[in-house]
């Protein structure tokens, strides 16, 4: 009896695999949906749409970007994780998604999905943030800044565009790496946070280069360091935190994810296309014109990077969760 069930299951799995194989041969035969868990109009959305425009030409089928927004990316992420794994529903993965999941775990809640519910197709940006202060601030270098922060623990205030986002976690990781404590004031969005540094309402902040660099040129802000491992082409004289001996690399990545059980031939085809998109001249222009840089990771590299990243966030999140006010 039991072997019978096993046999049936085996046949079933095999036939499914074969269906998968035949599907992959002429995949895609219909339009592909790309779920973006973040709202339309943001940088992330535009990068996803740039990817869709180039990739649909290579695949020969339209790619429709659908914004499924809610609960800091949880709603769209869950829809993507639970989609039929046939290669026709893909998800825009980003640092927002992994951050939200890690934060749920750190607070003892069970996240509705994790990165292990997806298989990585590839990612195409890895953007560091810049540590910015007001030009009147008494710091000449990151070393000055860190020693001042050590002298006044918990007194230097920074702004973020929102909790556990790309302007909050890099600073916490920097503090963790340098062994100092900062005071966090969350704002609603990157713009208000920039305004807070320019208007001296906080002491410093961390922001992406595209919006920050014009303010640096106009002498409204000063950059102390790149919170990453590689200097930027646009500001070659600004050192990275890694050069200065602090382990605080952290990047905003954007990539494409598929549900975990997507057949291997389809995954391979999508990975191949993603690699080609990342090398496409027009795509590179669409990403680099606004001031970002294309940095391609294939599916396996992305998975490896995410393991390192998650371990890092988990440590910081656990500390933050401990300090957070209890209900």
């Amino acid at each position, binding site marked *: 009896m039991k072997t019978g069930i096993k046999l049936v299951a085996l046949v079933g799995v095999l036939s499914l695999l074969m269906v998968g194989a035949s599907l992959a041969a002429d995949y895609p035969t219909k339009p592909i949906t790309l779920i973006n868990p973040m*709202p*339309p*109009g*943001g*940088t992330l*959305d*535009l990068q996803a*749409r740039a990817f869709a*425009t180039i990739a649909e030409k290579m695949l020969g089928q339209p790619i429709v970007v*659908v*914004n*499924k*927004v*809610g*609960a*800091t990316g*949880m*709603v769209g992420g*869950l829809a993507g994780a639970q989609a039929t794994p046939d290669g026709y529903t893909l998800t825009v993965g980003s640092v927002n998604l992994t951050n939200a999941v890690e*934060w749920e775990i750190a*607070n003892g809640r069970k996240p*509705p999905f994790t990165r292990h519910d997806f298989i990585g197709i590839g990612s195409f940006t890895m953007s560091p943030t810049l540590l910015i202060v007001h030009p009147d601030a008494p710091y000449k270098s990151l070393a000055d800044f860190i020693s001042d922060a050590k002298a006044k623990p918990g*007194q230097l*205030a920074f702004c973020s565009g*929102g*909790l*556990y986002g790309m302007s909050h976690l890099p600073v916490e990781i920097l503090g963790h790496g340098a062994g100092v404590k900062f*005071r*966090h*004031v*969350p*704002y*609603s*969005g*990157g*713009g*208000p946070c*920039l*305004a*807070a540094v*320019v*208007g001296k*309402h*906080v002491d410093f902040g961390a922001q992406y280069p*595209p*919006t920050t*660099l*014009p*303010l640096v*040129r*106009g*002498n*409204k802000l000063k950059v102390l360091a790149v919170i990453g491992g590689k200097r930027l082409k646009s500001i070659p004289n600004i050192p990275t935190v890694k050069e200065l001996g602090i382990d605080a690399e952290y990047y905003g990545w954007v990539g494409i994810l598929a549900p975990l059980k997507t057949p291997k031939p389809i995954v391979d085809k999508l990975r191949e296309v993603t690699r080609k998109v990342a090398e496409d001249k027009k795509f590179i222009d*669409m990403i680099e*014109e*606004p*001031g970002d840089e294309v940095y391609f990771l294939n599916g396996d590299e992305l998975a490896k990077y995410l393991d390192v990243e998650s371990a890092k966030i988990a440590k910081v999140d656990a500390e933050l969760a401990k300090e*957070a*006010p209890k*209900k």
Partner: protein
Amino acid sequence: MDVLNNLYNGFQVALTFKNVYLCFIGCLWGTVVGVLPGIGPLAGIALLIPATFGMDATGAIIMLAGIYYGAMYGGSTTSILMNIPGESASVVTCIDGYQMTRKGRGGAALFIAAWGSWVGGTLGVAGLMLLAPFLANFAMKFGPPEMFAVLLVAFILLGSLGKGSFFKTVPMILMGLLVGTIGMDPLTGTMRFTHGIKELYDGIGFIPVAMGAFGIGEILVSTEESLIREIFKVRLRELLPTRKEFRASWGPIFRGTGLGFVIGLLPGSAHVLASFVSYTVEKRVAKNPEEFGTGRIEGVAGPETANNAASESAMIPFLGLGIPTGPAPAVMMIALLIHGVRPGPLFITEQPQIFWGLIASMYIGNVILVILNLPLVGIFVNLLRVPFRILFPIILLICLVGTYSVNASTSELLILLSFGVFGYVFRKLEYDIAPFILAIIIGPTIEMAFRQSLMRSAGSFAIFWESPITLTLIGLSGVLLLWNIYRAVRPKATWEKALEEGE
């Protein structure tokens, strides 16, 4: 002379066939997203960004800005005709605008809304043109404590928003504040009143609440009155405001422009706040404030002007410094970034053709919008000739589709309908909905400003009187509060008593 010279160059950019065409498309699309309830300027701009991929930066920003200020024109239409806010900045227009329609003055209300929008919009562009760099730096001085102080003043003014008594306004405000706390606390990440329901993590959206409480609530009340309610007949000559209505509108329009322009500089969705503050101010300065809520033209003219002026000045931090402090300018900023233009403090001097081209296009756009909207008044008013038993399912459908189109979320439909019932019940109990809605808007913002200030100062309240701006504003709110109390307890003059007894 420098300004005139630059403006002349700007018009040379804006008056090319292509740019006038793009400006027209932007204004038209803006009017459409403004008229359609649910979908607002933010979604309207975001939807059209991919369409700008093939344009140059100047054309793209001319079109997208057109959507933003164009939506302020269209937003009043459904508010006035159907009591459904077409756009968040037009919620307050429902109060007197819809009453005017019921009195057969809907055409006049629409006319004044378009006229006020033009004045507010055009003077707003002039302010933007002359003062952008100066005001951008001034706007940076507004940190959390200043923001808190401003909102405190607005909040006290809010007490007089309702037409009912103090005891019917305050419970609605408190309830609005409660609804506003639902969702993730933006400062700690703690979930408040979500009961593990993921759809509530982002809080209760203010658009479905306003559309439900006003629009659906109104439908429910009307069906109860009669399915064959009288049609609000409007004759052509009644479309135009009377001389008396024109005269009454001048004050609100100019006050609305000033208020809107200043409030627009504040971070966040300032045009919404601007419309509410303008309404309450008009009610304060009016000779017989008790008539507000029964269809006073001032209650349409002020707010509809203020939201236009605010939408122009909200672009100042973005154009003058490259720091978008509201959601719509943030999306426009991204549109410029895609085209390789990075707005910053040097933007106006380094890219004069874009900045001055945009300014010139905004003058043109405001003229286009007035030409576009005035003939529409006649068409829209004709909608009211449709029998109510046919009109009301259509209104219901528009509300449902409009709400669904924003986030593709079925839970928001549920929120829309529940607040429809809520609006119906509280209208029957003769409570006002407007203070409830405004509390939902201001509550989270004032809480955030207050707590951000205290987070910055590590719990010291001294942060609220360290800067002269906050000190002045907090003093002002104290005076307003005392004045309110005095008015409530002072012995009434005999003529006032006679008036009350007469009612």
